[in-house]
């Protein structure tokens, strides 16, 4: 990849199912991310995270970009990082092995790199490409699974790697849209869930193990953040649009009105969990002059609870199948537009059986409404992830992603730092 001088201002762009968000920011010396400009525009013709009409989306993207540029007072010149999601993205776990042949059969960094390379060498179908690779765990001979195998003694080293792969076509579509608009290519493209993790979690969270759930309009992503970074990742193409659609069918209201209903649940005094006496409380939903319905709160809550509860059930089942649940000690964090629905954290606690709270971006300065906004997690996370990508490229040094993550998260202290010889 061509070497570019480091820019101070990075840009993250998320083309979501309901909104296109552009965030510009720069890193202060102490690792705090200062947001300089934010722009957003409603996205049209995006369903379940995938672009259906390139031209329409490009026009909206132009609006969002100019809004961000106006807010920050400067043009976007620096590197742009994109978030991608949709049914074409999936994750898989591959295993690579190597013989430990060094002196005293102690695992060296070369052994680790060889094993990881073997695992990453998994051949994908030609229409797919790797988006992320994470070293999940290592195993020396038949020993326990560890996050770092350096210095252990044994004959064989096995590395387990999580690959996040996506289809080339949809990813390239996103990149080319940015190129058409800005005149240069996006620097790199990340899975939304991974970007969220960068925004939400610090080193202590990786130790405990956390689950991040991003409930967007069209897609819900989930990532288990544990050990060396992302331990497991997945998505379901269900989001707030499904809630709105369910409400439209159940309450016989227009879809556009129901999308607004999902946003306004807090103002209406409704929550994601059914409460007693919900039948007695009614809300008047106007759909225009002289039109509308008077609906019991319970109906609304029941539809939302069933849908969101089901999403959490599917996530829990999948994590259970992959034996991930025991790795999540810290609980779940919710973000995305769906996290704004009141009571969703309580519902997640009940269904997932673990502590759950609304995620907020860490180490951030800027506008107050962005600092606590769970639905801006992805573009903010893109900036942190982007810095890591640029560090790797900039040094031209084949250090592992893991080391970069550790550095990004300030994990490199003491023995660990020595062992990595950094």
């Amino acid at each position, binding site marked *: 990849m061509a070497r570019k001088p480091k820019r101070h201002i990075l840009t993250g762009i998320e083309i979501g199912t309901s909104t296109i968000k552009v965030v510009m920011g720069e890193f202060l010396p102490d690792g705090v991310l200062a947001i300089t400009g934010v722009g957003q525009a409603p996205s049209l013709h995006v*369903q*379940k995270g*995938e672009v*259906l009409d390139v031209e329409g989306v490009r026009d909206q993207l132009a609006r969002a970009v100019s809004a961000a540029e106006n807010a920050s007072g400067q043009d976007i010149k620096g590197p742009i990082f994109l978030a991608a999601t949709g*049914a074409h993205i999936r994750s898989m776990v591959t295993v690579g092995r190597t013989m430990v042949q060094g002196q005293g059969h102690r695992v060296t960094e070369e052994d680790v790199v060889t094993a990881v390379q073997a695992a990453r060498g998994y051949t994908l179908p030609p229409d797919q490409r790797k988006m992320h690779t994470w070293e999940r765990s290592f195993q020396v001979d038949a020993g326990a699974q560890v996050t770092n195998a350096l210095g252990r003694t044994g004959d064989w080293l096995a590395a387990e790697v999580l690959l996040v792969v996506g289809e080339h076509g949809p990813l390239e579509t996103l990149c080319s849209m940015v190129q058409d608009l800005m005149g240069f290519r996006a620097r790199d493209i990340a899975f939304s869930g991974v970007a969220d993790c960068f925004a939400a979690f610090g080193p202590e969270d990786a130790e405990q193990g956390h689950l991040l759930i991003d409930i967007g309009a069209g897609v819900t992503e989930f990532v288990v953040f544990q050990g060396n970074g992302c331990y497991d990742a997945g998505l*379901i*193409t*269900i989001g707030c*649009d*499904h809630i709105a*659609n*369910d409400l*439209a*069918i*159940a*309450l*016989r209201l227009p*879809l556009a009105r129901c999308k607004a209903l999902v946003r306004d649940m807090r103002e209406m005094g409704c929550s994601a969990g*059914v409460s*007693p*006496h*919900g*039948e007695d409380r*009614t809300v*008047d939903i*106007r759909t225009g002059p002289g*039109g*509308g*319905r*008077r*609906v*019991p709160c*319970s*109906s609304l809550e*029941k*539809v939302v609870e*069933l*849908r969101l*509860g*089901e999403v959490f059930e*599917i996530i829990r089942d999948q994590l259970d199948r992959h034996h991930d649940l025991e790795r999540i000690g810290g609980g779940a964090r919710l973000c995305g537009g769906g996290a704004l629905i009141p009571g969703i954290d309580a519902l997640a606690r009940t269904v997932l059986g673990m502590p759950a709270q609304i995620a907020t971006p860490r180490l951030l300065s800027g506008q107050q409404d962005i600092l606590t906004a769970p639905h801006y997690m992805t573009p903010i996370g893109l900036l942190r992830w982007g810095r890591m990508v640029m560090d790797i490229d900039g040094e031209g040094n084949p250090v592992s992603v893991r080391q970069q993550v550790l550095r990004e998260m300030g994990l490199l202290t003491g023995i660990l730092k020595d062992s990595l010889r950094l």
Partner: protein
Amino acid sequence: MADPASESRDKPILLLGIGRGGAHIVSVARRSCAFPGLLAAAADTDRTTLDEAQVDERLQLGEAWTHGEGCGGDLDLAERAANASAEALRELLQGARMVFVVAGLGGGIGSTATRLVARLAREGSVQAVFLVTTPFSFEGATRARVAEQSEQRLRLEAQTVMVVPNSLLFARLPPDTAMPRALDISGELLATALAGLAHIGFAKGLITVEWAGVKRLVRHPTCTCSLALGRGQGPEAADEAAREFLASPFLGDARHLETVHAAMLTLLGGDDLTIGAVQSCLGQVQAQFPRNAQILVGAYTDPRMQGQIELTGMLVHTTLDGAGRQPGLPGTFPPEERQGTRAGRPSAAADGQPRQAALPFPDQQLGVFAGSPHPTFHDGENLDVPTFQRRNVPVDPGESL
């Protein structure tokens, strides 16, 4: 006088009346035929109903939701109330060897709590039999629709559902019958039918009927049941019982009897029951049924019935679709159809005219996701269909402003 069969098993047979209608019927059943080992219970949201019910156990449902008042036909409220008391219901069911649930569909709690009880019984592996009534035709289309929907949902959860349309009463009763009398007859008949069914559970059997057989009779999704009762005493007891049976008001009109697909007849007599009486009584009744109707016969004795004969019948009618087939799974054809329809010939409806079968209207909607290029499938389920529709949860759409 204790029945030896019931003594050997420690858990009682539970008669559970749900809602006002159910509680009334169970009260009558308990009054008229109190067996040892029979536990009558009533469950409702309305405290007044429970106070009036003459039962052994009373269960107030969803106190927090209704404050001891009725649901007023509000299905959502009823469902909440029932769910709030799920634990109490589960406990009640666990204490029983078998449960007969009686409820009137079309109202609030009867339409919703029956389904919950069905689920709880299934989870607790308790054999449950549902005897439900559908509303009188004059009660309006809304109640009828609610009843129909709740019947369909109940059938998803329960295996043995007997649906007795209340409107059948008027086919036989003279129009000048007093209304309270008509309702009393209805209650009494259901109560006796219930007792007749309960006999299968623990009376001393001469000819026994297995529950599996009863289940098979009523498993079809469109079948309805009519009930009949005949009693006789003295030397002519058998003939008297048969006559009364055939004149039973719940039987519907005479034509109804000719279209019976299956029937379960339960004959109860004293220790002195003779083979001649059984032969005569059952013979007279069976002569009225179509030749190929599937009939289950049970004969039981009870020492208290000395010199008396009581014949209870549950007659099953299955609605066929226009093509003369039963909608649903293969293998559920009633015997009459299986034998009467020759292969290769288009079958005809009752009036002899071939008819186009009605196409099922899908009750699941996709809304904006209809025709979506990437439908979301998970474990074979299309998740684009609203969850509440896939899980059959009713949602009150409110009213237009």
